């Protein structure tokens, strides 16, 4: 049965007031936050390592768990296995080169990283971006949100034993990646959103290709919904599992779908609009229960909201420049270099030395598929940042794992980690 997929009806998501879930939720409220005292009087317990090479830990996350038979008494995330010093690297790269670096952090949604970094540099430069660039950026960010959430649907299905879901998720994600490749030239790590605009204008025929991909993805989402949302096995594994409350989320700096699953409709696209998000029509999806099931369906319906935004972008894409014409920031077109000495000098200066950014500091935040991604930038007036820090939402959201896992079963821990959707490239940077 394919359910009505009108995403405007946010209220229809409010169900699941199962008594067991309520009770588990009350227990989760009492759970001690990380850093607090461990439970007293432990009997015959066992410490077990999950990962760093466990297939369900999404890369190289290691979870230390103390078990009393099947029950998890406490759990601790051990990270750093993918640390490659990208923030140190950023200090060695010029602002022009910086995008290439940040795009590799959250490899499932590289465009959010590029976006937040570019916006931070632009704020220090006091640079206005042309309207077309703003809309292209918004469309790309939403396409990337779709591919990221489709990846989540695939891996979440696999983690919970719904292997067919993995194949379906990859199938639709492929359609979005093909579109991203058509526009940016690359499937991942695009380096497309750059300081001053985007790297290239939209290619011929992008409207048709985008709309065709949206049709396929919306059809796919309806299929996932039919396959999983009312599937008794799926509900058994996810409803009432991994509960967390609004208060815990706020205290632990949790953002994104995990926060929205607790009944708090906090989305930076609506709350603190950037790009042109206050110009487009979309809904913030939120639910009340704060369990694994809610986080699954929030991400599922967010795909449809993103598709809605992408369709509006196709319809309303403004004409004009796709990057600023300030040649101190944007390289001149290739053809100009053959005929203009000035263009040649600008090109040479940009790619050898880069542009200088006035001394100062700033913090810019946008909503990535995983929550608030922020860029804290310090400049000393040279062409390289003194410090470029990315506030990775996965890094903070992992802190929710401890309170969520406590008191549940080992098999639930797999579901819970999956529902946080951490990307280790962003956690470890």
């Amino acid at each position, binding site marked *: 049965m394919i359910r009505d997929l009108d995403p405007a009806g946010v209220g229809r998501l409010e169900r699941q007031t199962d008594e067991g879930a309520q009770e588990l939720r009350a227990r989760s409220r009492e759970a001690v936050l*990380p850093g607090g005292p461990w439970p007293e009087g432990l009997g015959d317990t066992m410490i077990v390592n999950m990962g760093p090479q466990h297939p369900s830990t999404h890369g190289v996350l290691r979870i230390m768990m103390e078990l009393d038979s099947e029950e998890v008494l406490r759990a601790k995330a051990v990270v750093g296995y993918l640390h490659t010093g990208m923030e140190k690297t950023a200090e060695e790269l010029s602002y022009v080169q910086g995008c290439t670096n940040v795009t590799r952090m959250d490899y499932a949604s590289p465009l959010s990283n590029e976006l937040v970094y570019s916006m931070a540099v632009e704020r220090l430069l006091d640079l206005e971006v042309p309207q077309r660039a703003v809309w292209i950026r918004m469309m790309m960010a939403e396409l990337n949100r779709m591919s990221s959430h489709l990846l989540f649907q695939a891996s979440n299905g696999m983690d919970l034993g719904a292997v067919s879901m993995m194949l379906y998720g990859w199938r639709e994600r492929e359609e979005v990646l093909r579109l991203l490749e058509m526009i940016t030239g690359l499937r991942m790590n695009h380096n497309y959103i750059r300081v001053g605009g985007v790297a290239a204008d939209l290619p011929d025929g992008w409207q048709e290709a985008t709309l065709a991909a949206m049709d396929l993805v919306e059809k796919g989402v309806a299929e996932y919904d039919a396959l999983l949302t009312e599937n008794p096995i799926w509900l058994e594994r996810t409803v009432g599992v991994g509960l967390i409350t609004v208060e815990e989320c706020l205290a632990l700096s949790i*953002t994104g779908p995990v926060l929205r699953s607790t009944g708090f409709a906090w989305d930076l696209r609506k709350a603190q609009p950037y790009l042109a998000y206050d110009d487009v029509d979309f809904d913030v999806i939120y639910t009340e229960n704060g369990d694994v099931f809610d986080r699954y369906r929030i991400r599922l319906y967010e795909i449809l909201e993103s598709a809605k935004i992408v369709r509006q972008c196709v319809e309303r894409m403004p004409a004009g420049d796709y990057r600023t014409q300030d040649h101190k920031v944007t390289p001149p077109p290739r053809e100009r270099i053959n005929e203009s000495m000035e263009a040649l000098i600008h090109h040479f200066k940009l790619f050898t030395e880069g542009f200088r950014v006035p001394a100062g*500091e700033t913090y810019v935040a946008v909503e990535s598929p995983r929550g608030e991604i922020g860029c804290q930038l310090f400049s000393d*007036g040279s062409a390289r940042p003194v410090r470029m820090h990315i*506030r990775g939402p996965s890094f*903070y959201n992992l802190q929710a794992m401890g309170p969520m896992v406590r008191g549940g079963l080992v098999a639930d821990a797999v579901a819970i980690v999956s529902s946080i959707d951490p990307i280790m490239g962003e956690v470890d940077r």
Partner: protein
Amino acid sequence: MSDDAGAPAAPPVPSDEVAAAVLERFPEAVFADSHGQAVVYVARSAWAEVAGFLRDEQGFSMCVDVTAVDHLLDGVRHSPSGVSPERFEVVANFLAPARNRRIRAICEVPEGEASASSLTPVYPGANFAEREVFDLLGIVFEGHPDMTRILMPDEWEGHPLRKDYAPARVPVTFKGDPAPR
């Protein structure tokens, strides 16, 4: 430009109501408008106290981010008048979702005594972030429940994001490599 030489102007009057409240409570704090964002420079001794004030009396229920920076090699040191710059700065971003406001607090940390009080007792979410700052910049947060390395291996020496930490200090080796020439 606030960092220009010459007679320093009087510190700007906060245009932001939260910053004004912080300045009223902590008179030694300095307000700065950083590209339209409210920033308060607070004394290191009042660091955790300011966070407690923001959470309990101003509704800043979320500490979004804690990070730090090493200004050892800055060409131009950007620092508002009224702040005596030190080598390190610890930065915390706070968010009040109910009021939809942000504020950033910065405290100066001297080289000789690289420590600050931990925000983790006030905001449990600062736990990982403070461990990261300790790991990469060697700033110790007093009162943190688990002040250990988080990204680098436990036995690592030095703090990589310090400017006097030489990159490529450890040679990259590959399996079956000939001995270094």
